[in-house]
């Protein structure tokens, strides 16, 4: 029976011009979306490369100048601030470039990547970088969002599924062949399931092939990324299975094609537009995180306090860090400003950190709450799989912010003892500088769990279909 059905389906679908149109549309949209994603990634990579190259060339020039002084080819400049060996001047004019490199699958989902900068050069003489960073963008673009593969798969693909499945039973009924089918030695449930299963399999092959070809076309190493890509496709197929399942249930209700179409569109709206919007709005309105604006206030408070008590702070700081105290008192330290900055940073951060931590905790709690809500819609689950695979979730950017803070600390720790010891830079120092390398290690990926939840959705609609089938009086439906 299955083979007969398969043969019949292939023949009818093959004759249907709509099916080809729909497939061509998906093909076109996927390729366009991937092209867009790749452009965004290229732009990001270009910006990073430019900054890194700039830093490298500045370092090379400085190293050459220092070497000339070391080899007595040139005399050190009279003004100390012009001296290329000055650590402060180096840290100011050759700032460290902290860059978040795109992942090889970043092109599939913009996620939160359009909100944040991917290259940051924190200033050493103030602490405000700890409060956050923004990218320069047109907010209208952020509001509308970009046309990426995630959009095609989350929003548009379900409609494709629904278009292929909304009237399987109803059209059979409307064309009068349903009684003929009902007289065959197969249950209507089994017949419909087979028909939809065949369509699901066909669409799965088309969708997977399109995405694989598209990714390959954009230069993604599919062998290297086999794990992530198969996880992504697995989640996508489950998402499609869910929508086919929904269509299955709605078909089984035995209503006319028009009603089916409206019901399914309403469900699409509910899962893809309403549930996410309701979750966001209720959490932000009913459980708002205190605004970052409050932290500014605390930061200013601590900053003023530190400025007013600079001398005292410096004394205490040196008492706490005897290793940094000046040994050679005959010479004034050329880094007086930075010494005071380092000393006050501790005081400012000690005052701001509790507020910042409270804020981050409240935020984490709220985000965890929102995260739990993702189980309310498969669209949200799939979005998360996409963003995780792309490395563009909010968690990735929170982690990047922490990596910036950590690396800046490392850089300061490197400079601090040298500045307190009134040292100058040597031409060989550059190779020993701490270097930043972006890593996604600390961001947990729960795509497996998300796939499990997607399977639960598929099982629920499966169970629902069975209940609906059992509850219907099929004699009435067929005739």
């Amino acid at each position, binding site marked *: 029976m299955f083979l007969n059905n398969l043969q019949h389906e292939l023949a009818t679908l093959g004759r249907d011009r709509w099916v080809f149109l729909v497939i061509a549309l998906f093909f076109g949209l996927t390729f366009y979306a991937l092209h867009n994603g790749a452009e965004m990634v290229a732009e990001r990579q270009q910006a990073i490369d430019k900054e890194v190259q700039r830093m490298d060339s500045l370092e090379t020039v400085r190293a050459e100048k220092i070497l000339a002084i070391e080899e007595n080819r040139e005399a050190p400049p009279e003004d100390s601030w012009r001296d290329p060996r000055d650590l402060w001047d180096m840290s100011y004019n050759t700032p460290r470039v902290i860059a978040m490199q795109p992942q090889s699958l970043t092109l599939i989902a913009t996620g939160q990547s359009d909100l944040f900068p991917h290259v940051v050069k924190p200033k050493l003489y103030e602490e405000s970088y700890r409060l956050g960073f923004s990218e320069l963008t047109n907010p209208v673009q952020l509001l509308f969002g970009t046309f990426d593969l995630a959009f095609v798969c989350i929003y548009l693909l379900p409609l494709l599924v629904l278009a292929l499945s909304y009237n399987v039973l109803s059209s059979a009924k409307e064309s009068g062949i349903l009684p003929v089918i009902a007289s065959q030695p197969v249950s209507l449930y089994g017949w419909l399931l087979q028909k939809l299963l065949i369509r699901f399999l066909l669409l799965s092959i088309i969708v997977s092939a399109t995405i694989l070809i598209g990714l390959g076309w954009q230069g993604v190493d599919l062998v290297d990324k086999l794990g992530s890509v198969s996880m992504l496709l697995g989640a996508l197929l489950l998402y499609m299975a869910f929508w086919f399942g929904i269509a299955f249930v709605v078909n089984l209700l035995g209503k006319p094609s028009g009603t089916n179409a409206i019901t399914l569109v309403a469900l699409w709206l509910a899962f893809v537009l309403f549930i*996410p919007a309701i979750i966001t709005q209720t959490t932000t309105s009913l459980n708002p995180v205190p605004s970052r604006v409050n932290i500014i206030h605390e930061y200013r408070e601590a900053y003023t306090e530190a400025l007013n008590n600079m001398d005292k702070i410096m004394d205490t700081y040196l008492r706490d860090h005897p290793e940094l105290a000046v040994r050679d008192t005959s010479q004034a330290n050329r880094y007086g400003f930075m010494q005071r900055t380092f000393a006050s940073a501790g005081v400012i951060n000690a005052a701001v950190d509790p507020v910042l931590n409270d804020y981050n905790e409240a935020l984490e709690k709220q985000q965890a709450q929102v995260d739990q809500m993702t189980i309310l819609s498969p669209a949200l689950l799939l979005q998360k799989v996409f963003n995780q695979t792309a490395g563009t979730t909010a968690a990735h950017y929170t982690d990047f912010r922490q990596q910036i803070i950590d690396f800046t600390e490392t850089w300061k720790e490197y400079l601090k003892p040298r500045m307190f010891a009134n040292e100058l830079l040597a031409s060989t120092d550059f190779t020993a500088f701490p270097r930043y390398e972006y890593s996604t290690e600390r961001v947990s990926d729960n795509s497996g769990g998300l796939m499990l939840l997607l399977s639960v959705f598929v099982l629920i609609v499966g169970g629902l279909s069975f209940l609906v089938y059992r509850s219907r009086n099929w004699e009435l439906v067929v005739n």
Partner: protein
Amino acid sequence: MGHIITIALKECKEILRERRFQWASVIVSILLIASTLLSFQYYKSVKQQYELAQDNARQKWLGQGERNPHSAAHFGTYAFKPRYPLSLIDSGIDKYAGVSIFLEAHSRNEAQYMAAQDQTGLSRFGDLTPDFILLFIIPLLIILLGFNSFTRERESGTLRLLKSQQVPFYALALGKWLGLFLLVLGLVLPLYGLAWLLLSNLSDYGQFNGGALTSLFGVYLLYFMVFINLTLLVSLLAKKSNVAFVSLLGIWMIACLVIPKFTTSLANQLHPYPTQSAFVENIKADKQAGLDGHAPWSEKAKQLEAETLEKYNVSSLEDLPFNWSGFLMQESEKADAEIYFKHYALLKNIYQEQTDVYQTAAALSPFLPTRFLSMAISRTDYHSHWNFADAAEKYRIELVGAMNGDLMENSRTGDWSYKGDEEVWASVPAFSYEPPTLSAIMPLHASNFLVLGFWLLATALGVLLATRQLTVV
């Protein structure tokens, strides 16, 4: 005319009796009211935070203690972007733009802390705010109610009957149009009333402008009219209800979801914004080539020194009738302000080019002009954000200028012990920002009105033409 009203009333009655309308209208009404109340709640809490923050910033500025006025300019203060009452209806770009700008000597800073940065990817699906319902959901409702207006008559054979009774089809179309419009109006009017009630009860009633609220609803009504036209047009052209429904759904998808995203990607590729770091780098390069107030030893400073000494006919800086450092700082501030002005003008240029791309795309989607008009009237568009940022920059220049001026006038060159006090800090009034008035905004959006008007006329004409060619079989 009699025909038309009879048809409109019959249409209304029929739809009102339908289960799908009852369900849909109940859901949409609940969502509209819930979203308005939720946004009102949010508006109030943000407003409170804003007032507190603004107040704190001023107190910090006044209470910074005695110090050199230029140090006070470095210490700086913050400008906070107020929320405009109509953001209750359309929050626009609010969550994608920063809310506070740090105002300090030598630097123009970008607005910081956008709300979206503290949300997860889920928030990118959109928020349940009234604009979401008005822009996305009500058009869908119109489609749902009207997709079979004509196909149903055709399928049930009543079109033939109507023809035999010599009902002109244009009257039929007009009647159906009116029927749909009255139903939509019935859904939206309560929201208008609720918004009016909430807004007029706000403590800052002064900022609330009934005219703006009415214009906002006027724009949405135009938008709904376009969708009613489109729905009737497709229903007239389609042979079957199913085909009409699927086609209209496709039109909705393309107009409301695909084209805005597509245009965004296009605008970004055609006219990309520089990255933050490149932008800062360009400004830094210009500044290094210019006058640095903190580097009196630099060539440019030396040149200015010679010129000033000559102008005042004195031989040393100490003999000048003012503090040279204050003067130098202010001159460099002026030069910096010009550099910022130049670079922000370049940025604005890109923004304008991107806006032009959106305006062109508006010919393909009535969603776009409506979205832009709605945000503009609600003062939650990008233009309003620029307006705020420019006002903050103007204030920064005044603030820093006053500080440098005080240093220059009230101390002598080389006197580093001079300190300003609260009286000096209070000499600069607190930052206050009033968004542009409705009449100032409207002319800027003439093209959006034109495009929306074009959509209205073109679709209306389409409906009339289609009724002429309507055949009963």
